[in-house]
């Protein structure tokens, strides 16, 4: 049995930093609590270095009875999650600085980050469920961090849905265990084709529901707009980016490793879910006037595009690299948009952004890059991601899905432009006090995210190979 703990350095460093942070935070005076933020950043950086070493030295392996896989998808996912976590930490600095529960914020962020990392590598149904809980529960608390009415309501909604669908997921895992007499993917792969069809189908759907909840996809998307709108903006940025990464990679691994040969027609199920998610997300975003709600629905539609890669997980060789690359590009682009919203805390509606390009040209440029990036305009990273995902969908025989995704992309342009056009309107700008900025950290995060988003598109050739390779059984 391989019990190599060094394979789990990124997860352990986040969890360790959380424990140390919790203890140290209890003794630190409030003005020194920023030390915990620094600790969190160091933990992320250590995780990134460890991942880079794993990739450079080719130390792919599965550990603990094959329950946790450290392979291409895990490495890429770790880079995305840890990089995104660093951006989230940076954009949160001004929001929680001097807050009486500052330490708790960083600790919760680290714990849910560790849970997301565990989701990515989960190669076993029980591991998957444990990771789901670890990723979810701190996030409920984060959603209510501000302790105001809207935040509490959002957290309650988030929690109730998460608890319900988490239980469903556990029931699904039990059904699959009953069908295959094991919970490890490698063994399920051979056992499930012989198992009763109905059992496998119901079990799979139930497990997927939990992952769809984490990803914010239809039909488990109802929490997304409320949490995005009610939670502090950096938390909103977190819940619309990192859990999606974790859930989608976990879903990809589950479908690709455990169910390739089962008789269940899950590709069609996921294709329909993808179609419904992207369409509903887009339609709901159309006439939003609040920027956070607009972004929330936009993230739902983005999950729809990402689910296309899951639908063709076993049908196209392009699926894996398109999924991983799109996730990276999406994370950077989405965080960039949220960083701008964080930086302008008083600008809540689209009208509040009128004339921003004259007052804050750099922030307007970031929004231009990020929103056009979310549409999929070249040369941003999401364009390349979309290109790969559309190619994968057509290659996997889902041309109708790709055509629908194209139609949705055009439709999404409408609401992104509703936000973008006022930025550059010279007449009747919004009052200056709605466009006051928060501070340097959030702005720097915005610039960095936009730069990464552009760089992923222009230098995609250097990044794509990292997403190529086979998963470990």
């Amino acid at each position, binding site marked *: 049995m391989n019990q190599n703990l060094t394979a789990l350095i990124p997860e352990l460093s986040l969890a360790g930093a959380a424990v140390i942070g919790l203890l140290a935070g209890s003794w630190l005076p409030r003005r020194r609590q920023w030390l915990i933020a620094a600790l969190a950043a160091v933990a992320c950086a250590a995780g990134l270095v460890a991942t880079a070493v794993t990739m450079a030295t080719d130390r792919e392996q599965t550990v603990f009875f094959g329950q946790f896989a450290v392979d291409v998808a895990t490495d890429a996912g770790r880079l995305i999650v840890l990089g995104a976590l660093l951006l989230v930490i940076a954009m949160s600095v001004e929001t929680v600085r001097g807050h009486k529960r500052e330490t708790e914020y960083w600790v919760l962020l680290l714990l849910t980050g560790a849970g997301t990392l565990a989701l990515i590598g989960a190669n076993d149904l029980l591991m998957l469920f444990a990771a789901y809980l670890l990723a979810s529960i701190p996030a409920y608390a984060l959603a209510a961090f501000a302790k105001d009415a809207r935040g509490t309501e959002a957290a309650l909604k988030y929690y109730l849905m998460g608890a319900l669908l988490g239980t469903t997921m556990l029931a699904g895992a039990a059904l699959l265990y009953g069908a295959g007499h094991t919970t490890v993917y490698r063994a399920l792969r051979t056992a499930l084709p012989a198992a009763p069809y109905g059992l496998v189908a119901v079990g799979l759907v139930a497990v997927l529901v939990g992952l769809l909840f984490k990803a914010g996809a239809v039909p488990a998307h109802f929490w997304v707009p409320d949490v995005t709108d009610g939670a502090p903006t950096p938390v909103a940025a977190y819940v619309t980016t990192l859990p999606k990464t974790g859930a989608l990679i976990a879903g990809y691994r589950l479908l690709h490793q455990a169910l390739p040969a089962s008789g269940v027609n899950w590709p069609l199920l996921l294709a329909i879910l993808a179609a419904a998610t992207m369409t509903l997300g887009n339609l709901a975003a159309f006439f939003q006037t609040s920027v956070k709600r607009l972004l929330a629905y936009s993230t739902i539609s983005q999950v729809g595009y990402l689910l296309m890669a899951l639908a063709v997980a076993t049908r196209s060789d392009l699926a894996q690299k398109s999924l991983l690359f799109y996730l990276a590009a999406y994370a950077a682009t989405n965080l960039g948009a949220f960083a701008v919203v964080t930086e302008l805390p008083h600008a809540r509606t689209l009208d509040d952004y009128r004339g921003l390009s004259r007052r804050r040209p750099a922030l307007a440029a970031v929004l231009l890059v990020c929103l056009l990036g979310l549409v999929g305009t*070249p040369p941003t990273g999401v364009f390349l991601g979309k290109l790969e995902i559309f190619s994968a969908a057509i*290659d996997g025989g889902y041309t109708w899905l790709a055509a629908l995704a194209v139609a949705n992309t055009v439709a999404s*342009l409408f609401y992104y432009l509703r936000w973008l056009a006022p930025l*550059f309107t010279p007449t009747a700008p919004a009052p200056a006090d709605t466009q006051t900025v928060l501070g340097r950290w959030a702005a720097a995060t915005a610039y960095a995210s936009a730069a990464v988003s552009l760089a992923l598109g222009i230098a995609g050739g250097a990044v794509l190979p990292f997403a190529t390779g086979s998963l470990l059984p």
Partner: protein
Amino acid sequence: MLSVVVFLPLAVCTALLLLPSRALSDRACGRVWIATATADLALVIALWASFDSRGGLQYQQRVRWIPSAGVGYHVGVDGLSLPLVALSCLLFLAVAVFSLRERRRVRSYVCLFLFLQTVSLGLFVALDLILFFVFFDLSIVGMFFVIAGWGHGERARAAALKFFLYTFIGSLALLLGFIGLYLAADPHTFDIVDLTRADPLAGRGLYAGLVLLAIGVGLAVKTPTVPFHTWLPPAHTDAPAAGSAILAGVLLKMGTYGFVRIAMPLLPGSWRRYALAIVVVGAVSVVYGALVALAQTDFKRMIAYTSVNHMGYIILAVGAAGTLAGSDAQTRSLAVTGAVTQMVSHGLITGALFLLTGVLYDRGRTYAIDAYSGLAAHTPRFAAVTAVAAFASLGIPGFSGFIAEFQIFTGSLASQTVATAIAVTGILITAALFLRALRGMFLGVPRLPRTIATRGIADLKGSEAMSTVALLAVALVIGVAPRWLLDVIEPAGHTVIGLVAR
């Protein structure tokens, strides 16, 4: 070398953006723009001088960009693209000179146009489908901001949104078609040269037809042809004059250029199979565009519709070039040569016409034809230049339009007699509509819109005259002595015909 031509404007644009806003006055920005456009044009002339017209693709540069996605940075020019590259440089220079009078947010304006110049040049030299697509999409983004930012009021923002959504649908259809080509090729690649050689969709029936449909629709929206033209009139009417000139002169060519660069050589089988449909779309665009233009009361809108008519000739010609029955390679190649010449000619003449409508709007604040009368008495220079441009546009011998349309009709008549005969009536209708507009606006009793101050209307100023007359002069040179241009286009046209007949 080619990359320098393409990215020089973008480099200047970046430099302008990075300089602090007080370091450069509006006037200086304009001068920098003119200098850049002149330098770029000079570089292209140098390229042209050492271009070997029988040498196929030249000045090629191929760099690995995203190899794992089959995408490369591959640029080069041949007889199809070089004239369009030169046309773009010339038009951007003309627009730069014309825009010396612009006063609103000059620096952003200059930067946008520099960006658009890089995008346009990049598209014409791109030899990779994704590179082509990148520039295709960015041209939409750039033009959106030109129309929304410097157009005529709130209406312009609506027109810009319509333009963006409409052409974006087209560009994504194009992307689907490109993916179809990519997946069919083995090994998967987006490289136009490799795909041309491999002809991956030969004998793939319906699949190839669908790919052609996607690419065809994408390019048809941009061109635009009937029935995808409805974004064009509002976009033109509400855009600033310089934006209209670039939109009509350069951006529309991206669609028609796509047909000869991508659709014909990469999908020869389906192109031949569906040639008749393409010819019908072309002929309908010619007649419908002309008839609708005839019904317009707005001068600028009228010119916008004549663009639909002129682009229709090109579609007719490329469709006829795909019809093997009843024609030999020489007549078909004549049609392609005519099509490319028409792209150049339309860019020059319609570019000039749109700049002239800008002068009209600047003086009278309206484009309505019946608001003006007897302008020739007040503004003889403006009347003369507009009249020359109008005659050139309707295809009078002596100007480039005649050379182009003559070749198109000669090349198409043998194989598509009926469609060509119908299309010829388009010339008649455009003649009628231009003569009607000229008579109404320039002749008769002098009468001006009430908005004009009592001191009367100013004639063409130096910068306005220089930019428009220069464009018409080139059209005249092509009309009188076209060999220098045709010598470059003809071998390339011949190559395309050879590829289509495979």
